[in-house]
C-alpha cells in the first residue's frame, strides 16, 4: 500500500506547481496507418477529434493540453515495439494507446508491462490481450473476438438450423472466433452439429472452390469470419452460385461500414451480423458525434472513427479521475471507470480491464444499391462475457494484482 500513498504525497506536492507548469500531457499512439488505411485513417480522424474537443474545453488537470505523438507500425509487431520504445525513451510520453492488429497490440502490451506504463489498446480483437496474455498495464476498448462471437451465438441459437458450416481465415482471429462460436453454440444447442470447415489463408480466399466445398456439405447455416477482400469475393461468388439461398448466415463484423460499404449491391440480404448502423442510431450523443465528424472531415464515420474517439475520450476521463498522469493512479482510475460513450454508458471492468463497449446486432438488407443493417439493436458488452471464474482462471495472477 506504500505506492499509492507515495503517489498521493507527490501529487499534493505537485499541486501548486501544476497550475503554473502547463506542460502538455503526451500520449504515444501507434497504429498500422500505411498497411490498413481503410480502418486506421477513420480511427485517427476519431481520436484527433477527441483530442481537439478535450483541448477546446480547456485541457486536463488544470489547463494541461493533450498532445499525441503518432507512429506508423507498418503492420509489423517488431516495428511497433521499436516505436513504443522510442515514444517512451525519447518522446517521454505519459502513456501508450492505439494499435489495430492483434499481434501488434500484444507486442505493445508486452512493452507496457516491461516499462510499467499504461497502454490503452483501441482496436485489437484477440482474447489473449486481456485474458491469457493480459497484464495489469493493458486496457482494451473494443469488444473482443469472444464478445462478438457470443453476441452472434445468441442469435444463431434461436435459428432452427441444426447443421452448421464455418468459414474463417486461417490464423488466430479466425481460429478463436470459430472455437468460441462452436463452444457457445454447443452449450446452448446440444443438437447442433458442425459439418464442414473452410480455412482460407488470409487474403487468399479462392471463392469458387471454397463455396463449392461448403455447398457440398449441405449445411443448414453458415458461420462466416472472413472480412475485407476475402469477404467481397466470398459474397459475390456465393450470390452467383446461390450458396446463401434458403440458408442462414451469421457473420462477424460484416455490418461495420468498413466491411459493408465495399459490398455495394452484392450485400447479401438477411445475414445476421455485428456492426454499426451509423446512419440510424438516433440518440442525441451519437447524432452530435456524427454531425461533428461530418463537419470536421466531410465524410461519414466508420466504426474505427468511434473507436478512436471513444478510446481517447476514455483516456481523458481516466486522467481526470486520477488527477494525475502517474501510471499507478491511472490504472486505479481505469479499473472500474464509468464513462458515457457515443453508444451509451461503458465501464472498464476491474476484473480483466476490458471495456463493456457493445456492438449492434442486426440483419443485412439492400437499399438503393448499398448495404444497410435492419432490425438491429445495441447489445451491451457486459452481457457477453464469460463467467468471472473463467476469466480469473485464464488471466495471469500477476495481472490481477
Amino acid at each position: 500500500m506504500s505506492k499509492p500513498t507515495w503517489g498521493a504525497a507527490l501529487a499534493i506536492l505537485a499541486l501548486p506547481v501544476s497550475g503554473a507548469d502547463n506542460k502538455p500531457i503526451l500520449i504515444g499512439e501507434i497504429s498500422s496507418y500505411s498497411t490498413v488505411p481503410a480502418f486506421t485513417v477513420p480511427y485517427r480522424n476519431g481520436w484527433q477529434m477527441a483530442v481537439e474537443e478535450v483541448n477546446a474545453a480547456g485541457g486536463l488537470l488544470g489547463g494541461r493540453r493533450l498532445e499525441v505523438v503518432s507512429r506508423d507500425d507498418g503492420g509489423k509487431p517488431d516495428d511497433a515495439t521499436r516505436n513504443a520504445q522510442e515514444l517512451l525513451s525519447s518522446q517521454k510520453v505519459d502513456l501508450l494507446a492505439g494499435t489495430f492488429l492483434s499481434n501488434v497490440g500484444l507486442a505493445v502490451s508486452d512493452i507496457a508491462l516491461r516499462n510499467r506504463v499504461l497502454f490503452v489498446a483501441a482496436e485489437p480483437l484477440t482474447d489473449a490481450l486481456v485474458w491469457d496474455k493480459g497484464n495489469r498495464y493493458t486496457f482494451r476498448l473494443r469488444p473482443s473476438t469472444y464478445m462478438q462471437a457470443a453476441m452472434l451465438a445468441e442469435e444463431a441459437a434461436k435459428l432452427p438450423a441444426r447443421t452448421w458450416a464455418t468459414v474463417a481465415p486461417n490464423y488466430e482471429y479466425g481460429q478463436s472466433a470459430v472455437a468460441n462460436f462452436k463452444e457457445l453454440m454447443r452449450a446452448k444447442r446440444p443438437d447442433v452439429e458442425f459439418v464442414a470447415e473452410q480455412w482460407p489463408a488470409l487474403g487468399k480466399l479462392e471463392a469458387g472452390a471454397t463455396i463449392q466445398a461448403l455447398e457440398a456439405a449441405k449445411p443448414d447455416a453458415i458461420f462466416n469470419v472472413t472480412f475485407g477482400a476475402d469477404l467481397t469475393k466470398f459474397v459475390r461468388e456465393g450470390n452467383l452460385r446461390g450458396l446463401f439461398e434458403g440458408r442462414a448466415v451469421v457473420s462477424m463484423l460484416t455490418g461495420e461500414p468498413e466491411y459493408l460499404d465495399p459490398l455495394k449491391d452484392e450485400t447479401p440480404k438477411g445475414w445476421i451480423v455485428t456492426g454499426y448502423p451509423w446512419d440510424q442510431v438516433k440518440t442525441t450523443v451519437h447524432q452530435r458525434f456524427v454531425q461533428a465528424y461530418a463537419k470536421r472531415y466531410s465524410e461519414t464515420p466508420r466504426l474505427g472513427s468511434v473507436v478512436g474517439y471513444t478510446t481517447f475520450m476514455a483516456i481523458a476521463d481516466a486522467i481526470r479521475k486520477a488527477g494525475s498522469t502517474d501510471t499507478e493512479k491511472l490504472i486505479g482510475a481505469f479499473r472500474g471507470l464509468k464513462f458515457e460513450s457515443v453508444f451509451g454508458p461503458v465501464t472498464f471492468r476491474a476484473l480483466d480491464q476490458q471495456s463493456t463497449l457493445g456492438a449492434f446486432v442486426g440483419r443485412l438488407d439492400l437499399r438503393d444499391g448499398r448495404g444497410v443493417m435492419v432490425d438491429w439493436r445495441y447489445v451491451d458488452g457486459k452481457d457477453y462475457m464469460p463467467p468471472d471464474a473463467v476469466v480469473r482462471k485464464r488471466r495471469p495472477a500477476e495481472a490481477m494484482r
Partner: protein
Amino acid sequence: MSVYLSQALGGLSHAATLFLVASGLSIIFGVTRIVNFAHGSLYMLGAYCAYSFSQFLMAKLGAPLGFWPGVVLAALAVGLVGALMEVALLRRIYHAPELFQLLATFGVVLVVQDATLAIWGREDLLSPRAPGFRGVVEIFGERFPQYHLLLICLGPVVLGALWLLFNRTRWGTLVRAATEDREMTSALGVNQRRLFTSVVLLGSTLAGLGGALQIPNEAVNLQMDISIIVEAFVVVVIGGMGSIVGAFVAALLVGEISAFGILIFPRLTLVLPFLVMALVLVVRPYGLLGKPGDESRGPAQAPGTHLVPAGRYLRRAGVAALLALALVPAFAGEYAQLLVTDILILALFATSLHFILGIGGLVSFGHAAWFGVGAYAAALLLAKLAAPISMGLIAAPLVAAALALVFGWFCIRLSGVYLAMLTLAFAQILWSLAYQSTWTGGDNGILGIWPSAWAGSPARYYYLTLTLCVASLLVLRRAVFAPFGYALRAARDSALRAEATGIDVRRSQWLAFTLAGAFAGLAGALHAFHKGSVFPNVLSIPQSIDALVMVLLGGLETLTGPVAGAAVYHFLQTQIMRSTEYWRVILGSVILLLVLVFPHGIVGSLRRLSAAGWKTR
C-alpha cells in the same frame, strides 16, 4: 461427381488468371533476365485502371460498350507503364551485376503502392459484374458463373496468340533468339533496346490484362500486388523460366491443386502450391519444361569479384568504427542504442545472406527461414522450458544450422532462380507453420522473452549484440579468405573448373549454406531477445526481401557492403516512417535514386570511384 467437375472448372478459371500474369513474368525474364518484383504491382495497376476506365466509360456508353473497352484500355495503359519503367529505369542498369535490377523493381513496388493509395483511395472498390456474363449456367445441376467460363476459354486463346506471335512473326523470332543468346542476337545487329522495351511492354500488358479481368471477381484492393506476385513466381518456376507452354501447364497444375486442396486439406491451402513446387524442383531441377543450362546465365551468376583481405587502412578504419560503436551507449540515448542494436542484428543477417549469395553464388529468396528458425528456437526454449538466454543464443544457431543442413541438401542441387524459389518455398512452409498452428503461438506470437538481468538493460544488451555480431562478422570474413572461401568462390565462378581442380563443389556449397543458416539463426535469436517477442513475420517474405535489399544496396561484390546496406536501409526506413505514413514512396524513390547513382551498390560504387580516382591521378 458433379462436385468434382465443378471444382475442376473452378481450378481452370483460377489457372487462367495465373497464366496471364505468369506468362508476362516469364517472357520478361526470358529476354531481359530481370526478376521483376514489380510484376504484381502491374497486375494491381491493371485492376485499378480497369475499375476507373470501365466506370467512366460505362457512365458514357452504357454497360456492355463501356466495360470491355475499359478492360482493354487498362491492359494497354499498364503495358505503357511497364515500358516506361524499362526506358527510364531498367535500361540504365543492364550493365550492373545481375540480380541488381531486382532492387530497382523492389523500389518500383514501394512507389506504386503509395501512388495507388493516393490516386484511388484506401477503400476496396467493387466493380459490377461483367456485362454479358452476369449469370450462371447449370452444369450437371451445379451452378457455375458464366464469367469463369469466359476466363477458362481465354487462357488457351492467349496461349495460342502468344505461340503465333513467337513462332510466326519476325519479332517473335528475335525474342526467341534473344532468349537463347542475348549477346549473339545483339552481335547480329538486332536493336537490343527496342527489343527489350517491346518485350517488357508485352509482359506488362499481360499482367495488366490479368488484373483487369479480375475486377468482376473481387473488389480491387491494395494487397493485390503482394497476393499475386509470389504465386506467379511459383507458376513460372514450376513451368520452367522462360517457357510459355510451361507456364500454362504449371498454371493448370497450381489452379487444380488449389481447388481440390480446398476440398481435401482445407487447412493447407497456403502451403500446397509451395509443396508442389518443392516436389517438382526436387524431381526436375529446371521446372517441368525448362531447359537445363539456362541457369548458367541466370541471375545466380555473380561476377567473378576479386576480393582481397583487409589492408592496413581498412583494418584501421575497422578498429576506429568498432571503437566508435563501443562508445555509443556512453554518448547516445536509449533509442539510439536500440536502433544501432537493430542495425547490428540486421548487418549480421545480411552478411550471412551475402556469404551464400555473393561468395557462394547461391541466390536465396527465403533467407528469413533461418533467421526465423533461430528466433523461434530461442523463444520457445525460453517460453516453454524456461531456459536462460545464453542457452537460447547457443541453441538457435545450432537448430538453424541443422535445418539448413537438411534443406540445403535439396537446395544446392539447383541454381539461379530455381534455387531461389526453392528456398522461398521452405521459408513459406515454415512461415505458415508459425502463422497457422497453435503450438508456435500462431499469429499472436510468443511474448515476454526478455533477457535476464545480466543483459537486461538496453546498454548491456547492446554490448552483448555488438560482441556477438562483430565476432560473427569476423568469422565470416575469415571464412572468405580461408581455403574453404577460395573453394567457394572458385565454384561460383566456374563450377566445372573448380571440380577439375579437385574441389567438391556441392559439398562446399552445402557447408556454406549451413554456415550462413547458423549465423542467420544467431541473428534471429538476438532479434528475439532484443524485441522481447517473436511473431511469424520473422519468417515472412518481406523479411527475406529486406535482407536481399540490404545486400544489393550495399553492393554484392564487397564484404563490407551488406553492413553498409543494412545500416543505410534500416536507418532510412525507420526515420522516414517516423515522419510520414507515405514512407513507402519516399523509401522507394531513395532506393531508385541509389540504384541509378550507385549501380554496383553503395560500397561497390564508392570503391570503383575511388579506384578510378587513383588511376587518373
